[in-house]
Structure formats: structure tokens, C-alpha cells
């Protein structure tokens, strides 16, 4: 009899067949819309710019690189990445439970945590494969409007890395929420758009209990000065160094996945069927 599969090897097996399932799921349509809409917006900006029109931010006309930065900040970091994390991360186990297919995975000689880990890897691959190309397309559509593709290219590379790290961190946190709680989606949304957004406005240490705090430190663009809120944020802006942020995000990912794995190992999922 062959040796029992290890956590890593069984996670890769789970990833193998989960990736295809995830890529062609209904959730991918949602993902496509979420990352497709900014591409359409960028295309519209590009077309209008040919007529001499330039977008206006804070009453000033801005060029392509600045607009790209605004999109990264306000759309991707603040909205798209957390939304993807919530909707995919909380569903990693819930989908299997709802579809009643979890039994097949839990009656195989693999650690239960490998099911979660394999599906998390599939989520990462799936989201990164769809998200990053859309950002690259937006970059090539917008940045040439009053800017230089070559000059801004290092910023694009930093943005892509930052988004990948954000997807990994939010996905891990919400994988834990999904593995731990019975109503993970609501809790996830409250965390991403209630807790995180609120706490970031409050001076002090609480913001360190968010993913966004560390992720913001990786954003290579200046924060847009679009409102009194932005000014307020600037006053209280307290971003950690990049290395600290990366270390903390890595810690968040590892800790969340470890806790999620423990939850999956001990939870009696069939009770929820």
C-alpha cells in the first residue's frame, strides 16, 4: 500500500480538480463582470481622450498615470480585492457543503485541511488569472493618455504584486471566516466594508487589525486628494514600512490558513447538509 498523501501533495490534488470547477463556476461570471467593468471604463476614457477630453479629479484635469493610480486605490484596493476575497474565500468550504460533495473529499485518505488549502490555491490561481490581465489592459488603455508606458511600468509591476498579495491576504482571512462560521458571507461583508473602512479612519492601533492597513503601504501611488475625508485620512496617515507590511500580510495569510485548517479538521460539516 502506498504511503498516505502529505498535506502538500493532497492540496495539489485538490487544487487540480478544484481549479477547473472554480474557473467555470457561476461565481466566475461575477468575477468577470467585476474585473471587466473597469476595462470598459478604461476603454471609454481612451476613446474620449482622442477628442482632447481629460478626466477631472478634485477639479483638476489628470493624466493617464494619475487616473490609473486612482483606479488602483479606489476601485481595486478598496473594493474589488476585498469583494473577491469575501465572495470566493467564504465559499471555499461552503460550496462543497451546499453541493453535498464534501463527503467525497472527507472520506479520502487526505488531511481535511488539504481540502481547504487546495481550494484556496485554486481561488488564488483563478482570481489572479482574471484580475491581473484586466489591470494590465487598463494600464495600456489609460496610461498613454498624457503619460508614458515605459516610465510608469515599474509602478504597474508593483501594482500587480500588491494586488496578488491583497487577493492572497483577503482570501485567507475569509477562508478562515468561511471555515469557522455558519453565515460567513454577512460577517465577511461587515468585516470588509464595515470594520475595515471604519477603523482606518480612527487614529490609534485598531487599524492594525485590518488587512487594508498593511495593503495600503504597498500601493505605489499617492492617495488621491478627493475630499475632506481624504484630507482627514492624510492627517492620520500612518503607513508601516513596506517590509513590515509584507511581513504582517504574510503572517495574516499563514495564521488565517492555519486557523481555517484547524476549523475544517474539527467541524462536522455534514450537520449543515
Amino acid at each position: 500500500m502506498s504511503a498516505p498523501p502529505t498535506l502538500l501533495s493532497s492540496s495539489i490534488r485538490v487544487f487540480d480538480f478544484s481549479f477547473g470547477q472554480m474557473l467555470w463556476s457561476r461565481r466566475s461570471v461575477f468575477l468577470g463582470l467585476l474585473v471587466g467593468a473597469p476595462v470598459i471604463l478604461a476603454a471609454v476614457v481612451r476613446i474620449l481622450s482622442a477628442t482632447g477630453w481629460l478626466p477631472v479629479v478634485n477639479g483638476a484635469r489628470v493624466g493617464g498615470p494619475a487616473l490609473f493610480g486612482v483606479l488602483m486605490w479606489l476601485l481595486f484596493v478598496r473594493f474589488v480585492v476585498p469583494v473577491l476575497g469575501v465572495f470566493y474565500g467564504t465559499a471555499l468550504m461552503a460550496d462543497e457543503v451546499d453541493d453535498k460533495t464534501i463527503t467525497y473529499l472527507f472520506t479520502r485518505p487526505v488531511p481535511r485541511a488539504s481540502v481547504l488549502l487546495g481550494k484556496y490555491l485554486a481561488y488564488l490561481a483563478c482570481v489572479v488569472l482574471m484580475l491581473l490581465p484586466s489591470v494590465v489592459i487598463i494600464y495600456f488603455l489609460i496610461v498613454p493618455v498624457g503619460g508614458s508606458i515605459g516610465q510608469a511600468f515599474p509602478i504597474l509591476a508593483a501594482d500587480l504584486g500588491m494586488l496578488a498579495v491583497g487577493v492572497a491576504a483577503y482570501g485567507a482571512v475569509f477562508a478562515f471566516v468561511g471555515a469557522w462560521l455558519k453565515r460567513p458571507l454577512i460577517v465577511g461583508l461587515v468585516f470588509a466594508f464595515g470594520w475595515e473602512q471604519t477603523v482606518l479612519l480612527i487614529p490609534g492601533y485598531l487599524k492594525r487589525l485590518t488587512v487594508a492597513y498593511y495593503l495600503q503601504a504597498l500601493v505605489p501611488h499617492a492617495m488621491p486628494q478627493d475630499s475632506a475625508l481624504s484630507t482627514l485620512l492624510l492627517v492620520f496617515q500612518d503607513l508601516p514600512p513596506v517590509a513590515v507590511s509584507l511581513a504582517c500580510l504574510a503572517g495574516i495569510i499563514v495564521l488565517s490558513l492555519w486557523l481555517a485548517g484547524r476549523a475544517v479538521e474539527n467541524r462536522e460539516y455534514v450537520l449543515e447538509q
Partner: protein
Amino acid sequence: MTDAVIAAEHVSKWYGQVIGLNDVMLKVQPGITGLLGPNGAGKSTLMKLVTGQLKPSKGVVTVLGEPIWHNPPIFRRIGFCPEQDAFYERMTGLEWVTALVSLNGVGDAAARDMAARALETVGLTDVSGKRIAAYSKGMRQRVKLAQALAHDPELLILDEPLSGMDPLVRRKIIRLIKEWGRSGKSVLVSSHILHEIESMTPDIVLINQGRILAEGNVHQIRDLIDEHPHTVYVKADDTRELARRFLTDDHVLSLRFEEGAIVVQTGRPDAFYSRLTELAASGELGTIHEVTSPDDNLQAVFQYLVKS
């Protein structure tokens, strides 16, 4: 007696205030064993406990000599066919079985070979390249069975495996399960349909209201319920005289005539059969053509026990 393949020691399972299983003691011996009970009897809870999907609230469940909860490596020796009709619908039968077998730690090529063999065993080779979404109910049942037996486990645990199958396929699957048992492997098969189990094995476990009512050979179980009236059909030349003789015996509870036969209900089957043998041997009542007991079938035993 050999070691039990499945053992439950004082196992209880509560769902909040509801008791799913209540202080169950069970030893399932090697071979084919049928788990019988009506819907809601606790069969599903027991199946989920013996497959490690649920943790007992109290007690220990061991399978093949090892605790099943928190013990994934044991599943290399176990195949499980669950009751629910749930699949990765977009996958083909071959892809699905291959994917699951690969979780047993075998390489891709070996997993594919094992999956193909299992699909052949259940008669699905022709449609193995089709998406599961396009399968009929019977095919879906069979592909579930294929994933359970593909890795050649020592113990097969089958939860309502014949549900939705047409009679021909049903017969084939019953034969397959019996062959599996004859090859020295063990099978625990659950059903709420008595004749299904009866056609596979005489060794049964009866469960109702979260308790094991009886376990063992169906005839041994019948002996356990002597207090229940036992019905015997006797076809004889002189039924009137036979009835007259039996009426004087205190173990005979009731008696009725049928065409060329009498049907006797007795409270003490042993005493009745001794008396019948005595009368037949005396030759005074002509020939006794046939003695059968409808109570020997599983349906009757089950009904007696559930009613008690």
C-alpha cells in the same frame, strides 16, 4: 469470532436536544452486513459516524481496528458510497472517479486505470467520457459506487446503493456486492427496503429510533423474539384433524384454515415444531406436504421488532 470490522462502543450522537443515536453497542463482523431501518431510524447518523464524518457525542467508533474520527489514512482501506445524489456535474464520469482516486495517493496514470476498471465493473465504460450531468439516476448511482470501489478497499460502506436503479442493473449490482463479500472483503450496506438487503445477505443489523434493535443472522434474530407470535403455514391431507390436535396445545395462540392448509400462530415455535414433527411421524394425519413460516422473511422480523 474474528475481529469486528466496525465496532461502536456505547456510542451516542445528539443534535442539540435531539438524539440521533442512543448508547449504541455494535460489532459488524467481516462479510456482508445489512443495516436496516425505516427513514429517520438513525441509519444515516450511524453511517456518518462509521465514515468519520461525524464525531460521536459519547463513545468510540472503530473501523478496521482503528478509531475513525480524525484518522484520514484509514480511508485507504475503506470505500464509501454516500446516499446523496451530489456530483461535480461538469466532470465526466472518468474524470470524476480519477480525481477522487488520485486523492488516495496514486499517480495520475494509475488513478485513471483504476477509475476505468471501476467504471467497467459497474457497467459504465460506454458513458465514461460523458458529463455526469447527462447521466440517468441509475448511472449516477453506479458512478458513485465506482468511486467507492476503485481503490480496491477492504471495507465498502454503501448507503442506499440501489436507490434509483432499474431491476436489471439492481440485480447486477447485488451480484457485484455479493462477489465482493465472497472475495474476503467486507461490506456494510444500508437500506430501508428489506428485500434488497435480504437478497444480499442474511446478516443484518436492525435499527430504529436511534437504537440497535437486533443484530446477527436473520434466523437468530427471529429466535430473539420468541415472545412474538410466530406464524406457520402447514399444508396437509387432513387439516381438520390437524387443527383439532393443535387446539389442545397451550402454545398455539390462533389458527385459521386456508385452502388445503392451516395457518397457526404460536407463542413457542420450538414446542410447536416438536409437536408437528411428532404428529407427522405418527402418520395418523396423512401426509404433511409443506411447512413454511412466513415469519422467516426479513419483513416480518422487522415489523415485529419495530412494533415492539
